[in-house]
């Protein structure tokens, strides 16, 4: 269980303190599939970074399974069982996909075992296992590899920051299936930041964040109807429909 208690986070901008997260309190229960949505610039990605330890709160506490992790660094949180998938995955010249999956799994996986994770995210494993994670990979391919590294870790909490960002519609349709499978199979909790209606549709719980605060929170049945048709719940094809009219 992850709990954020009265968490605030601010940055210095033009010599003034700009607060991005205001006094936010949130609990993510075990075995839950939670989707955080809300307008752009509302603080969602910052919240994910605060959970992973990439940013530290200016106020408030964060606890994981009852242990205060506010002062723990990224590595310590990772080893306690928190995974984080980047919105914009990082490229590494020379590092192969297999290397990264092995680092994620923390064991010297056989190539065939590593392939299981790639197949899970819809990549034909034998074509990718020896590829370098460099600029020859497309945004969609990188995103899937990023998700595969989180799957390989198999931790208690997995945080995904806008998995739909920066990929084409075709790839996104396939990614939804990945998350649907993950929802059914995974034992741990999953926290996804997303605007996509189809992701919201498989949530146990939806949290809406705007201006650094929670504006709505509850079960999918309670929250989703109020979001449909707004920017917080986008139909992946809406732009195409509009373009075709």
């Amino acid at each position: 269980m992850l709990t954020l208690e009265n968490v605030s986070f601010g940055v210095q901008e033009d010599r003034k303190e700009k607060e991005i997260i205001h006094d936010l309190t949130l609990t993510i229960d075990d075995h839950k599939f939670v989707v955080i949505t809300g307008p752009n610039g509302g603080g969602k990605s910052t919240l994910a970074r605060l959970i992973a330890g990439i940013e530290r709160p200016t106020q408030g506490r964060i606890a994981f399974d009852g242990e205060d992790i506010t002062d723990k660094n990224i590595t310590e949180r990772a080893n306690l069982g928190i995974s984080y998938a980047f919105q914009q995955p990082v490229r590494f010249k020379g590092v192969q996909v297999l290397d990264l999956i092995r680092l994620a799994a923390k064991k010297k996986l056989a190539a065939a075992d590593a392939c299981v994770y790639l197949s899970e995210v819809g990549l034909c494993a034998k074509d990718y296992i020896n590829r370098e994670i460099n600029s020859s990979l497309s945004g969609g391919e990188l995103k899937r590899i990023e998700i595969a590294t989180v799957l390989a870790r198999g931790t208690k909490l997995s945080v995904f920051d806008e998995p739909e960002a920066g990929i084409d519609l075709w790839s996104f349709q396939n990614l939804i299936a990945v998350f649907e499978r993950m929802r059914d199979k995974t034992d741990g909790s999953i926290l996804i930041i997303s605007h996509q209606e189809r992701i919201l549709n498989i949530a146990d719980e939806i949290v809406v964040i705007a201006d650094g605060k929670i504006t709505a929170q509850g079960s999918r049945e309670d929250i989703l109807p109020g979001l449909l048709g707004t920017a917080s719940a986008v139909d992946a094809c809406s732009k195409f429909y509009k373009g075709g009219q």
Partner: protein
Amino acid sequence: MADPVTFSNVDSIQMRLLEEVAGLHEVPAGAYNIRANGQMAARAASANIDIISKEDGTGIDIRIKPGTKKESVHIPVVLSQSGLTEMVYNDFYIGDDADVVIVAGCGIHNGGDGDSRHDGLHRFFVGKNAKVKYVEKHYGSGDGRGKRMMDPQTEVTMEENSYMEMEMVQIKGVDSTRRSTKADLAAGAKLVIRERLLTHGSQFAESSFVVNLNGEDSSANVISRSVAKEDSTQIFNAEINGNAKCAGHSECDAIIMDNARISAIPRITANNTDAALIHEAAIGKIAGEQIIKLMTLGLTEEEAGAQIVNGFLK
């Protein structure tokens, strides 16, 4: 030809150096010549590959018969005596249509106060349609105050439609190195050079490549990946001259750390309207996001940095 000498002439430090630079832990298959502390320690020829000492004793001639296929030559050099300085001249004559692997390399262990130095001039004459893979590794060890220095020079003459791939690696322990590589390519010849370099401490490494694409449809690809740590200095010069319809590409990619300094000086010259030449050079530190990504997988900051460097130089 000298009688084959057994490996019993090689001591344990030299054996370790041989393993580092040539992957040798036993007598290799194929032809070989092992030079230890300025003397020949072991040599063997094969039916198709002859190794002959130069008459003035300054080096060896390696003659590979035309059509020799899938054979290898190992010619590593090791120095374990502090203060030893030597210069050798090795010439490789690779016959037409041959397909061979040549493994060179130099390891210096300096546990004393005198500077140890190995300089070599390797000349390759690659025959028509021949295919050569050349691997050269440099390695230094020992905690003496004496420096470990190597200045290798390589000259390559490639005949029509020949192919040569050169892999040059220096990862550890060499205090000072100035590498000079020059190649002349005839029509249809193709040269690929891959250099990997890691410097640390107050080491200095300079690599200079001059490739002359003289024949029609000749091509060259020079790729350097390097990491400079601590107070070390690296200079990379890559010059490609397109003198015919040809294709040339050079790429220098470097990671800079600590107080190191790196210069990359690529130069391309076209003397023919059909010469297509490209150079790329990039120097930068390890991106913070790369470190963060590996930390989210549970690695410490130091482990993450080491992984990134290892992957980059792999």
